[in-house]
């Protein structure tokens, strides 16, 4: 009766292989660890998926 519903959201952390800048965004279909995604917005390096994880919040 008093238990709160849990909701898990998946996130992807991308890291630039040149400037080490990290970007956190929502997970999207096709993401997998260590895949190269897009160009780094800060330098001319490439972003690589560093972590994929879920964060749970109680509603």
């Amino acid at each position, binding site marked *: 009766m008093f238990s709160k519903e849990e909701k898990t959201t*998946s996130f992807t952390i991308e890291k630039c292989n040149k400037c080490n800048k990290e970007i956190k965004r929502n997970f999207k279909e096709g*993401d*997998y*660890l260590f895949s190269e995604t897009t160009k780094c917005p800060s330098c001319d390096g490439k972003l690589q998926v560093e972590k994929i*994880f*879920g*964060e749970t919040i109680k509603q």
Partner: protein
Amino acid sequence: MDFSNFDFDQFFGFGEDSNPLMMLIWIIPIIIFVFYGQRIQLIITSNEIKKSINKLEEFRNESRNFLISYVKKNLKTQSDPESKIDQFLDYFTVMPVDMDPNGIVPKIRHFIRSREDYTREHVRSLSPTISHYELSKIQTLVEIATSLKLIHKLINHLYLTAKKQNNYPLILPLQMILPFIMEEAEAMKNAIPAFSHGQPIGDGIGPMVVGKMMLTTTKQALAFETVCGETNYEGRKLFLMKAEGPSATVGRPGDAVEEIISKQKLDTIIMIDAALKMEGEESATTAQGFGAAIGGIGTERYQIEEIATKHKIPVFAIIIKESVKEAITLMTKNIADKAEDVRSQIYEMIKNNTKVGQNVLVIGVGNTMGVSQ
């Protein structure tokens, strides 16, 4: 308080001025509980168990329906896959006879692998053009749905048997194991979204740690769905091994170690794996130890232990502690954040336990869903 003048007759209603109604109020429940106590307990316990069985039935139906809709949505099937999938869900494995346990491990390995191969080929028959990655995902979803169906069937059988026999002691072991079964069943049900989206699970921390170390190496297949890369570290040669990602597979590390030892002399083996934490322990804590850190039915561990013993190779292990739920559902942030720390522990372990010029095999054990190399 003074109990010396306590009147038992008055308390139980047996005195001369007692009320017969009061006597009945005391005696009738005693008689009922003496003769029908177990039945009353059986009814109460049965109701609780029935609620859990209804939940298990829900999990079973949800996993089956999800699997069917996933196959219909993602595969170009030639016919309606429903009846074929229902057939997969009824697969069972008869374990080899263990009256004479000598030589039982290769037999178990053979039966388990035959089952895996058979399931894989039957899933492929749904859509012959299916990719290896998609095939591994559906195979895992089939395993989950099969397990949930089996759990429901088994628990329901035990419950109905106890009810049929009106046997309270028969329902007690069921009542004791049910919370653990429910925890596992719930974890399995929660694993479905992670596998369908191709996301790494908690058990994938071993492959995640080793996968990053393998990024710059040239990979070669050593055994079925198992790859290895070579690199150097402070004068040591490192062989880095994991299941081939990002598919949902654990590979065949036993066969791969056998293959590598036939070509290379190994001086040390280091295994990285997720391990079940004990109650009270914190998630995502690490520990170092000795021995082959690998779960499953035991055949892979047996194979690695045999090789290590035969060649006198020390086996070190680093484990990352997790709950059952964390191990098979989407990786948590705490566990993902631990990867870098475990990598530095591996390098430290190599420096402390090996000499320059030696060969070290590092194995990332676990399901490599969503983890490439």
